[in-house]
Structures are given as C-alpha cells and as structure tokens.
C-alpha cells in the first residue's frame, strides 16, 4: 500500500470529533478496548484500531477501511492505540484532542532503546506537538509519565490508593528510580507494580500528583476478575471488572480517566468497564476439549511480572505452556526473561511445557527460578507442544499459556485451524 505522506492527517481530519491517542509500554490494547466499550455505550461512533496494529501502517489501514467517497468517513471519533516510538509522528498528523499515556517500562531494548529515550521523545511530543487545549491524561503513579504534565494545565491524573496492595520491595527490573526534574533518587512510600507507586523526590520536592481519578478498596480475584471503588470528580462507584490483576485495574483507571476527560458520565464509565472483554490474547479464556485454555501474553519484564503475580493468586499447581519466540516483533533479544520474576512459579508448577524458537532458554529460566527440572519439558514446535500440554492437563482443569507476541498469534491461528475453538475465538 502506498500512501501520500500526510494521508493519516488528511483522513483523520474527516473525523468530526477528532482523535484520541493511547500509548504505554503495557496495556495499550486493553485500555483502548475498555475506552471503546465506554464510548460506544455513550453512543460515540468510533474509528478504532481494535486489533492492535499500532504503527503508522496499522492506523492508516484503519482510517482507509472507514473512509469512503472524497470526504466521508464512517465514524466521528478516532480512538487509536499508538506504538511508543510512533507517538510523536502520529500526534503531528492526527493533532489529537486527548492523549492518554499509561506507563513506561523496560521493553525490547533492541528495538526501543533506553527507557529515557522514549521518555524524552514523549516529553517533546507533549511540549511541542500537543495542542495546548488538548486533554492530557497521565498515570500519576508512574514518575516518568506523571512528570510529563509538569507545568501544564488541564491534566487528568489517575492512580491507585490502596496500601494493602503495596509490594514489600521494588521489582528487580524496575526503572525510573531517579527524579526527572533534578536527578536525585525518588523515595517510594508504596510500590504497587514495577516502579508505579507513591513517590516523592527528597531533593526538589517533586511528588506524585494527586490523582483526580483513582481506585480504592481493590480486590484481586485470581485470573478472572477484580473489584475496586472508582472515584472521579463527579462521584464514586464500585466496579466489578471482568479482567484480572492489578495491571488491568490500572488499564481500567486509564480508560475511566480518558472517558472522564471526554465528559462521559460516571454511570456510563462503570457500565462500559463492567462489559469490557479481554483484548486479543490478553487474559483470553478458551474452552477446549473439556479444559480451559487461558492465554496470558507476556512480552517484557514488567508485564510478565504482573501476569505471574496474578497467576499465582490461583491456588495449587498449574499446567503451563510457555512459548518464547525471538522474532522481530517479540524482540530478538530474549534477555528480558531473566529480568522477570519467574521465581514466583517455584512450587506452583505441575508441568511446564516450553515451546517457541527459544524454548530451551525458557526452560532454563524456569529451572534457575526453582521449578524442578523433572516438571519441565522442551518442545520447540508449537503444535506438538500445545497438543501434549493440553492432553496432559487434567480434565476440567486449566492450561495457562504464556506466549510472547508472535507466539500468541501462532497459538490463535492453531486454535482457529483446529476448529476446536472457533466459536470461542470468533
């Protein structure tokens, strides 16, 4: 497909209510899906890159598919999740009326480079590209992201206020330990997830902004769901979120804050969140051969840690299918698995089947994490690994698949080709 260079801007300008951009290291697809559920309930007709194709090509295709005639487009508001590195360029073209930035974690260093590089590029986007009237929605708990709102008006911050969730110490792979303003190390009063928490700088006094949209009384209910009380400037309400883990509570808060910035009423926000579905490969559940296959995408240390933390909320020993690929879209460098806390799985694994292009490396990681080697097997070919792992899962039990991005796509293809799970996946 060849497009004129400003095609995205030209097509985007057909959207009567403009565009909204969502970016983050983790949770872009799910957050955008939740925001879509809320906005559609409000009757907004969206143009949305639902399948997660989040670079210029994917967004151009989404716009082209919706456009017709010389000036028309099916939809009034663009809702686009955007790759971290493409944010600046797409913001220049789409001139968003709202920008949601969720988090920044160490990710695929061979592609993204250092976290600071992305933070600098985002800062430039906010300062020099974003319209002064545009709404900026930021995670107050991520010091790097929250700092982007320094000195700017009309920022909507979101965050968690529940110390029962605080971790005993910061995860090993945590980044962003130094104040963006003055360089001194932050003091963390509570750490919720990676480097997200309640922090302040002892040197310059820069501190976590007070979030306008926040979650209290968070209850994590295993791999299925979570509950929390959502507070916005217009009121408070309990939310039963049909997605698991603290990371999805953060995604829900992000979507709620964005919807609030777009003036959606609280009841609609809550109803939208409660109707949210798992996005493509993220905590999807597929009934198959009398078992339940749960697909939990893992692609970087922070994301993997949250998936593992959520997984071990379930009692007992688990059947796992880990699929580690090193294709370009996964990151060629598989180092990151040694930064993720697979130690959480020690003593919780019945059988771990390791597959993918770098299957032995994953098996090795589990061994050094404390999973007994007798419980680990290596089958690089995914179809064989999947069949065996599923056949070995006790009837009525659950098989947890932890695939990297391209592995997740292969796994879904395999399921559709089998026809076993077509209805569940359609």
């Amino acid at each position: 497909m060849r497009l004129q260079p400003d095609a995205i801007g030209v097509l985007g300008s057909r959207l009567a209510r403009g565009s909204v951009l969502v970016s983050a290291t983790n949770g872009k697809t799910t957050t955008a899906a939740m925001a879509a559920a809320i906005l559609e309930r409000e009757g907004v007709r969206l143009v949305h890159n639902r399948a997660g194709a989040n670079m210029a090509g994917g967004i151009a295709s989404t716009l082209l598919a919706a456009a017709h005639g010389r000036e028309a487009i099916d939809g009034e508001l663009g809702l686009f999740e955007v790759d971290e590195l493409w944010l600046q360029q797409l913001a220049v073209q789409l001139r968003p009326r709202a920008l949601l930035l969720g988090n920044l974690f160490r990710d695929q260093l061979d592609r993204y480079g250092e976290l600071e590089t992305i933070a600098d590029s985002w800062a430039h986007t906010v300062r020099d590209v974003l319209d002064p009237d545009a709404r900026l929605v930021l995670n107050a708990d991520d010091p790097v992201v929250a700092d982007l709102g320094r000195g700017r008006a009309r920022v909507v911050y979101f965050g968690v206020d529940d110390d029962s969730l605080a971790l005993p110490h910061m995860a090993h792979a945590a980044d962003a330990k130094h104040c963006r303003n003055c360089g001194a190390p932050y003091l963390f009063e509570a750490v919720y997830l990676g480097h997200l928490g309640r922090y302040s700088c002892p040197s310059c006094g820069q501190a976590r902004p007070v979030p306008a949209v926040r979650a209290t009384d968070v209850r994590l209910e295993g791999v299925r769901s979570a509950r929390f009380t959502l507070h916005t400037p217009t009121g408070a309400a309990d939310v039963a979120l049909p997605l698991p883990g603290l990371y999805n509570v953060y995604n829900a808060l992000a979507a709620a804050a964005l919807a609030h910035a777009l003036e959606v009423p609280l009841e609609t926000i809550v109803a939208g969140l409660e109707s949210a579905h798992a996005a493509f490969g993220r905590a999807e559940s597929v009934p198959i051969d009398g078992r339940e296959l749960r697909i939990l995408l893992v692609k970087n240390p922070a994301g993997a840690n949250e998936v593992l933390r959520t997984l071990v909320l379930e009692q007992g020993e688990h059947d796992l299918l880990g699929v580690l690929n090193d294709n370009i879209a996964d990151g060629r460098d598989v180092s990151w698995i040694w930064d993720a806390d697979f130690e959480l799985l020690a003593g919780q694994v019945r059988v771990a089947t390791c597959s993918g292009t770098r299957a032995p490396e994953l098996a090795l990681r589990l061994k050094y994490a404390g999973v007994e080697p007798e419980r680990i097997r290596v089958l690089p070919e995914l179809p064989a690994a999947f069949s065996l792992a599923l056949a070995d899962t006790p009837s009525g039990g659950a098989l947890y698949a932890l695939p990297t991005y391209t592995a997740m796509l292969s796994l879904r293809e395999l399921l559709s080709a089998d026809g076993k799970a077509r209805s569940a996946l359609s």
Partner: protein
Amino acid sequence: MNTLRVCALYPDLMNIYADRGNLLVLERRCAWRGIGFQLTPCGLGEPLDGGTHDLFYLGGGQDRDQRLCAEDLIHTKRDALHAAAARGAVILGVCGGYQLLGRSYELGPGEQLPGVELLDVRTVREDHPRLIGNVAIEVSLSGGERVLAGFENHGGRTRLSAGQAPLGRVLKGYGNDGRGGFEGACSGNVIGTYLHGPLLPKNIWFADWLIATALGIDVAELTPLDDTLEDAAHRGARQAAGV
C-alpha cells in the same frame, strides 16, 4: 568448605540486560555443588574492600546511570579493584561494565567518562547505528577453544591497544567495533565483553570456568551437574547467531 564471595557492583543501576541472570547462575551452581555463596552489593558512594571478594561483577546500564557509576568507580573503588586484580580475583564487566573497565568512554564531543584502566581499551560512541544482534565468538581460556554465544547491543565502539588481548574472535556478529573481528578484552582474570543475553546461563562452561578460577581451583575439580537444559540453551543461542 569453599565459599564463592561475589561482589555485585551497582546492581540497582547497572542491570539493564538482565545481568541478574548471570549472578543467579553463579549462585545456583554453587548451591547445587555444596559450595557456599555470598553476594555483596556495592553501590554508589560505598567503599569497596578489594580483599574480601573472589569475583566482581559489573553489568550494563542506561547512559545516565553509567555516568554516575563511572565517577563513583574512579573515586571510591578504583584502588580496591586494582588490588583485587593484582591478587588474581576475577573481574567481569559486561557491556557498559566492560566499557568502564577500560581507559575511557567518549559519549560525544566533549563528554568523556573516565574508566578504571584495568583493560587497555578505549570506547568511543560514534554517530553510527548501534551494533545490535545475536553474536558468537571463539575464545581460548586455559585449554581448548570454546564458543560463547549471546546478544550484543552497544552504541560504543571499543578499540584495543596494541598490547591488549581480546576475549575472543568473532564468529558471527559485530564484536568490539564491528570491524576488527575481535570481541571483548582479557587481561589475567579481568574480562570485559559485550555479550549479554545474559551471558552465563547460555554459556554454562564459562560460568563454571569463572567459579573455578575465582576459587583458585581447576574446573575439573567442580562436581559435574546435569546440564541438559543448559546445553540446549547454548545450542539455541549459537543457532540464533548462525553458528
């Protein structure tokens, strides 16, 4: 009973390429053999006693953290590291850690980080793309030639002085500067390399060589372990590099 005493330099700052995996491998392999293992972190501003550790590990970091550590190394740890190297302790620097073991690292015009000068190398960041990809090298350390496989991702080009031995010869990948065909540097038991991935899990022979050398024993004296998975991961890393 022997105890391997490891000092991790700046583990909270210089850890970007999963350096924790390297330390974990040393720890587990000692434990499985009944060898004691002691890990002491040594951070910014903390004094270093060069006499109480058998192995020093320095990993990679982001630019900002590497700057902080370069200054600190010179001011609070340089002499202790030289004393340790002189008595034969193992000092392993990976990626940014390798650069800091050299003479200097020039980040850009007018900005040069000092190194601790344990390796006679100089690193310059040039206005060229980073050297990124799977890599395999052939090294010869006490005995026959063996392969190390891993991943490299560095903006700096490292040049060795005429008298400085490299760690190995590049089989696939870029190595020190993408041109000379050599990778890393090695002087006595001081070793610097760009190979992460991390290095030790997928090159288990090298992990054992480090343990034995740091303890002052022969590798053959280490209790053999079942390395089926380790060997498979090594083959996988070599395959990824195309060797």
